[in-house]
Every structure is written in structure tokens, then in C-alpha cells.
């Protein structure tokens, strides 16, 4: 299994997106995205709602079918109809805003199903790996709970453990803390930070600017279906160059101090 993508570690970056377009009917949500994520890199995608950042992430493992362009994921061309998507997806973890745990299974059951059905691991091995990952996210005492008995933050950590149990080479996070009560956000971000420090390749769509600034290597600001600005996270968030990025960050970081003149200028953009 580990040899499925033999040239991965050495040569090719795990995610290479080229001229990606995505339309829903007449509405073009992505207007030509070019993006490469290197091995071990943590990339945050920020931007106003409707900017296309979630759609971009969902295109990476083809939960959304791109209208045009190319997505190379772990060396596989995802838009090629002959590529067995399930084999690639098995090595790419995804965490959703609304957790999407399977309510008909316990926490550990959620972490086992993919290992058993897709990776064909033995039951004992799957349980061992699931336990290890649930322990890592701090939920070893909640393994036999069904999702409905867990808090939002606990559910999201189970969802991360579920993804990690597949031994992913890339992790995709789609606004993982947006549906959480504020006091539960920290636990989830802490798990993600540990993961980043352990060298996981990550793409994170988020509104958590402090996480982007402190944990990620690079941040991408999207608006209107295009990448407006990208750069090292520290630089982009503390000293953005583009006007649109400056206005967005000012609004997010300091929501009570929006000046009327700025509002006017945004409209004029």
C-alpha cells in the first residue's frame, strides 16, 4: 500500500492544481486557480464567504467535479476518468465543517470502517490503529460513544481521528472549527497544530487567522473565484499587499472598527 505512489516522496508535490475552473450552472465559482502544495507544507486558504475557497478544497479530492483544468493529487490526475478515485481518496483525509460522522456507528466504529472496507486491514489491526488515533486526539475515554453523545468539538476530533486512521499523505480541512462553540475551537486547533508540527501536508480552509498566521507555512487569500494574494502566512496576515486582502483582514481581525470610507471603497472595487 505504501508503494502505491512510489515517486511521491522524492519528486512530485502532493497537490498540483493547474488552471482550475468550476461552474455551477452559469455561476463560475472558480476562475482559473493555480496552486501547488509541497510535501509537508501547511497551506491555509482564507477569504470572504462565496469566494470559492471551500469549492477549491472539495475539487482537490473530486467531491466536486471541475469544469476545466487539472488536479494532480499524490501523482494521480484526478480529472482523468480512468483514474480509480477511491484509491487516491483513501490516502487523502478530509475533515468537514459539519463533522459528518456516521451516526449509526460509535466513535471507534467511525475510525474502523474505512480501514476495513478500503484498506482491507484485519479487524485487530484496524482497532489498534483507531485506538491510537483516538488517543492522539484526546478521546480514548469516548471510543464507544455514538456521535450524538459527543460535543461538537469531540465529534470534530473523532472526524480527524477517522481521517488519520487511513494513514493519509495529505489532509484537507474545510472550515473545521466554523460550526463549533467558541470554547471548543481550541481543542480542535490544538490537534491540527500537532499534526502540522508532525509534518503532515495540509490544506486548511479557515477563518481562524491566528491559526493561519502561527501554524501554516503559506496563506492564500481568495476572492471572487481567484487567488488575489498568497505568501508566507506571517507576511500575508500582518502586512498584506493587496487592497482587497487588507480590507478583508481588517474586517476579520477588527470587526468593530470598520470605517465608512473603507466600505465605500470596497463597493467601488
Amino acid at each position, binding site marked *: 500500500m505504501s508503494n502505491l505512489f512510489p515517486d511521491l516522496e522524492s519528486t512530485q508535490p502532493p497537490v498540483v492544481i493547474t488552471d482550475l475552473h468550476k461552474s455551477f450552472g452559469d455561476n463560475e465559482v472558480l476562475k482559473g486557480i493555480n496552486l501547488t502544495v509541497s510535501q509537508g507544507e501547511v497551506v491555509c486558504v482564507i477569504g470572504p464567504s462565496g469566494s470559492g475557497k471551500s469549492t477549491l478544497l472539495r475539487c482537490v*479530492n473530486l*467531491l466536486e467535479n471541475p469544469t476545466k483544468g487539472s488536479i494532480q493529487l499524490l501523482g494521480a490526475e484526478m480529472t482523468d476518468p480512468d483514474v480509480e478515485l*477511491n*484509491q*487516491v*481518496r*483513501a*490516502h*487523502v*483525509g*478530509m475533515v*468537514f465543517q*459539519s463533522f*459528518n*460522522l*456516521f*451516526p*449509526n456507528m460509535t466513535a471507534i466504529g467511525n475510525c474502523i*470502517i*474505512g480501514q476495513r*472496507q*478500503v*484498506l482491507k486491514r484485519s479487524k485487530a489491526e484496524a482497532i489498534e490503529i483507531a485506538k491510537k488515533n483516538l488517543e492522539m486526539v484526546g478521546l480514548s475515554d469516548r471510543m464507544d460513544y*455514538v*456521535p*450524538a*453523545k459527543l460535543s461538537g468539538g469531540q465529534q470534530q476530533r473523532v*472526524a480527524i481521528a*477517522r*481521517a488519520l486512521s*487511513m494513514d493519509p499523505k495529505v489532509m*484537507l480541512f474545510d472550515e473545521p472549527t466554523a460550526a463549533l462553540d467558541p470554547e471548543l475551537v481550541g481543542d480542535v486547533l490544538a490537534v491540527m497544530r500537532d499534526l502540522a508540527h508532525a509534518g503532515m501536508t495540509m490544506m486548511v480552509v479557515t477563518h481562524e487567522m491566528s491559526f493561519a498566521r502561527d501554524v501554516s507555512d503559506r496563506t492564500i487569500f481568495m476572492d471572487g473565484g481567484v487567488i488575489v494574494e498568497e505568501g508566507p502566512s506571517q507576511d500575508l496576515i500582518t502586512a498584506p499587499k493587496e487592497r482587497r486582502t487588507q480590507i478583508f483582514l481588517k474586517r476579520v481581525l477588527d470587526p468593530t472598527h470598520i470605517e465608512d470610507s473603507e466600505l465605500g471603497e470596497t463597493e467601488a472595487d
Partner: protein
Amino acid sequence: MSVLPYLKPTARKRLGRIGSYAIGLALILVVVAFADWPHIQKVFFNPSVAMKMWPAILIVALKNTLIYTVSSFVLGSLLAVLLAVLKLAGGPLGWAASAFIELFRGIPALLTIYAAAYVLPIAFGFQLPGEGPGAGIVALTIVTGAYAAEIVRAGIQAVAPGQAEAARSLGLSSGQTMFWVVLPQAMRIVIPPMTNEFVMLLKDTSLLYIAGFTVIQKELTTFGQDAVSTTGNATPIVMVAISYLVVTLPLTYLVGLLEKKLDPKR
């Protein structure tokens, strides 16, 4: 009476309800007083007629009704899942599934039973196994499958789309996603309408007489009809009605328990 205009609507309703109870009670008293009770008892609740039906009504008629119902329901439910999945998948097979569903929902169950029992042998010289009941169960399986397919389809579509997305992102195939994630959740949603389907099917087994029964193959309604014509008494009909209720009334309760058991918030 002068207080009436100042009464609240709820108070008026209460007065009205008391009035209607009084009228109903009076009617019952009149019926009880003037009805020919010995005659009613002789025709509808005749112990000697009832004794003659015992125990055949239980070990033949009710047993057969349950066998026909349960086997058609189990096979029909499996067919329904197949039809629903095919229909949702689309393509030529989905189109065929839709046509099948529309056909057998659109024609009377009696016609389907008749076709299975007589048209098949006449047209193709092909006799379904199990004589009349065998053909009848096949026909009721098809009818139940067609009706329940729409129930199952609605149940599948009621499962949150994020569930399938999470499963697919783990690398599960569409078939694995359906089997392990979507269908188990859809099953809980379809329990109440499927219970309804079961009750309808239980009553529809009374249509199987058209497929032809030997004496030991009779179900409740046929059994009751025969008993009425041989005894010239209506007691068998009452007993048959009670036999159906003995099945349907506890069922509602048991299904309530099952629903609670399958609740993910348990």
C-alpha cells in the same frame, strides 16, 4: 343563557362536547334497550360456531396469512431496496426500475396475482413453484417491492448528503457507501411508512384467493368466507376480524419499541 355571549371559545367547545357525549350516550341506551340481543348473539357471537372453527382458524388460517404476509414483505423489501438504488443510480437500469415501479403501482394487486397464477402458465407454459400460494407470494412481493421502492428512495434521499461525502472521501466506493453508511440510516427513517406497508400487505393477502387454495392453504378471509357459507352464521367474520386485529394492534406497539432502539441518540 344570558352568560353565553361572554363565554370563551374553549368554554363553548367544552359545553358542546358535553352535549354531544349526552346525545351519543342516549343513542347507545336506545340501541341497547331495543336491540334483539339474543338474535345478535346467535348470529355474530355464536359459541358453537366458534368452537367448530377452533383451532383451524389459528393453526391454518392465521398461520397461512402470516406466512404469506411475512414472506412477501421480506422479499418485497429486498426488491424495494434494489429498485430504489437502481432508480437513484439512473441510466437504462434506473429507467427500467422506474417503469417497473410505475407499472405495478398503477395496476390492481388482484390483476398482478391473477397474472402470476394464470397468465404465466397460459402464455409461457411456466408454472411458478408452490401452486396458488407460491404464485400469490411472488405477485405480492412484486406489488410490495413497487410500493416500498418509493418509500426506500425517499428514505435514502433523506440521509444528509454530507454522510455520503464523508464516506467517499475515505475512499469507499458508491456501493460500499450505500451499504455501510446510507442504507442503515435510511432504514430508521423508513420504519414508520414500512409498518404501514406491512399492515396493507397483511390485508392484501385476502386477495390471494384468486390464485386458488387447497383446504390447508387458506388464509383468514377465505377461511372465514367458507365458514360463513357452511354454517350460515356471521360469527366466523367476527372471529376473522379479531384475528387480523390481534396481529396489527400489537405491531404498532412493537414498532414503536424498535424505533426507540434504533434511535442514534439512545
